[in-house]
């Protein structure tokens, strides 16, 4: 199978919510392509539509109209199981509040996507260990998330997001809950991952965090305001 040109391709994508009697156009017609190996930062004030955008890109939601192609597949037509399948096989998520499952150990958290993929316990344990090593937490495998610092927790989350070897890593304000020093470490790490070939799309409202990306997409009122390319950090 030949690889499509773009990982993600949006064509006049709209997302409308009904709030009582009025329609809110969270996305009012967005057309953009994201390519393999890119590191994007989606920026904008709150209410600009960047969260809606991330939910759509992450296949947690479907557009009201327009075309969303993920590696050539039309996401708009998929049912709930179809969306789950794309998330399971091709997308990694990193969240502002880390979103680790508190009652599971570090290893079990990292293994979670592998578990849903149906990979055997022995193999997922081995892979989880390699991933923990990659984020520098190989000696924390049996700890609970609560026993780790914020930066460590976010690194566990990154390890988990990489477990399915994703085409795209989606990050939602990944440094929002971290101090500036740890934020920089995490961003450097994401940059490293990007240099290793991982495509990253990150939502942030902080310009100095967005500066780590290789391209920035500014949103306003559900539309793309402007795009600027180049690494600034």
């Amino acid at each position: 199978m030949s690889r499509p040109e773009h990982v993600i391709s949006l064509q006049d994508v709209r997302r409308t919510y009904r709030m009582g009697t009025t329609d809110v156009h969270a996305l009012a017609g967005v057309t953009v392509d994201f390519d393999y190996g890119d590191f994007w930062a989606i920026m904008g004030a709150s209410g600009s539509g960047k969260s809606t955008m991330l939910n759509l890109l992450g296949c947690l939601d479907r557009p009201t109209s327009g075309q969303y192609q993920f590696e050539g597949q039309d996401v708009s037509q998929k049912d709930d199981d179809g969306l789950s399948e794309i998330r399971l096989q091709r997308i990694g998520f990193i969240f502002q509040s880390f979103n680790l499952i508190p009652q599971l150990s570090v290893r079990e958290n990292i293994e979670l996507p592998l578990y849903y993929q149906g990979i055997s316990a022995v193999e997922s344990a081995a892979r989880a260990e390699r991933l923990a090593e990659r984020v520098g937490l190989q000696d924390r495998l049996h700890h609970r998330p609560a026993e780790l610092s914020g930066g460590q927790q976010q690194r566990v989350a990154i390890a988990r997001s990489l477990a399915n070897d994703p085409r795209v890593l989606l990050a939602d304000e990944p440094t929002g809950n971290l101090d500036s020093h740890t934020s920089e470490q995490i961003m450097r790490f994401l940059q490293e991952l990007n240099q290793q070939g991982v495509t990253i799309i990150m939502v942030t409202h902080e310009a100095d965090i967005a500066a780590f990306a290789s391209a920035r997409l500014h949103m306003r009122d559900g539309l793309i305001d402007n795009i600027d390319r180049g690494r600034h950090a």
Partner: protein
Amino acid sequence: MRNLRMVRDIQLGLKNLLLHKLRSLLTTLGVVFGVASVIAMLAVGEGANQEALEQIRQLGSNVIILRSEKPVDEGSAAQRASFMSVYGLQYDDEARIRETFREVRRTVPARIMRQEARFESRRMDMRIVGTTADWFALVDRPLAAGRTLEARDIHANAPVAVLAEPAARRLLAAEDAIGQHVRVGSHVFEVVGIIETAGGGDRRLDSDTDIYIPIDTFRERFGEVIVQRRTGAREVELVELHQIIAEVDSIASVEPVAAGIRTMLERFHPNEDYAIDVPLALLRQAEATQRTFNIVLGSIAGISLLVGGIGIMNIMLASVTERTREIGIRRAIGARRRQIVSQFLIETVVLSSLGGLLGILIGISIPRVITQVAGMPTIVTTPSLIMAAGISMSIGIIFGLYPASRAARLDPIIALRDN
């Protein structure tokens, strides 16, 4: 692969439940009591049933037992001491029963008295039973040695006797019983056989001190009038037959024939000097006891299981709310709705099964207590345990389905936003 995932789901479920040990225990109490009641109920029922069946096995299911009984209003003790009391079943009754009811296959008459028997220097108070050869066909006990009474003994008025095994052991001690001569009063009987007695303490038909002799021999040697000495008083009685056992052709005709005999005897015995025992009625009685217990314990079980189920559902709904974020995370990572359903359903089933397990342990102990305290026989059967396990798992599935589907229906975006 599926099985492995199942094992991991169960482990995860256990882990989540153990996070809230007290809550899980309290939640599952309803199931515990429900399951325990089910097991206790079935154990009591089975015990009563088995007891009745054992009695029937010893007495025979298609027999009716008639016994002579001294009527109560028979004058003062002084009168009884001086006069001879005449009462009870008569030879004619036996003939009438045999001739009137074609369902009656045979009848076994018996004359019974207590008398001392002697062997060498040993003496023993015995129950002398004069009867026919058919006794041994109806009161079916294993033969320990020799033979039973036979038709030729009856016709010949032979001075032969069959001893109950415990009596033979005590009276004849170590001697080889068969061929020995035992004295009853002034009469000598040759021992021709030793027979076992009913186990389990049921003394309605035979006892451990029985000596069986041909009925005509009884009549000839001891006469119709029986003098019994009892604590100072002397009782003189004329009873033709002390007992008649009637065997009918099928279990279905036991109760109609018993009713017919009752009506017939009422006509000839206005002062009720007899009693009718129907072993089959014991079974009916056992069934009635069982029904009562089933209603009481069944209601307790039903209510407990319902309340238990609702309790489990309630706590699982709370758990779903509590773990909304976890559900959102799992969905974002790629878990399908079905996998969320199975995760919560397995957790509920694990919870209710643990309750069931505890209930089984308690349910096994309750019948023991009932047996100890109330003296009722109880039997815990394996099928009842399997059923109890099945019930507790079904409770988990039935009452877990709604919370699990609620969990699966959560919108992952909203679930992730939950604090």
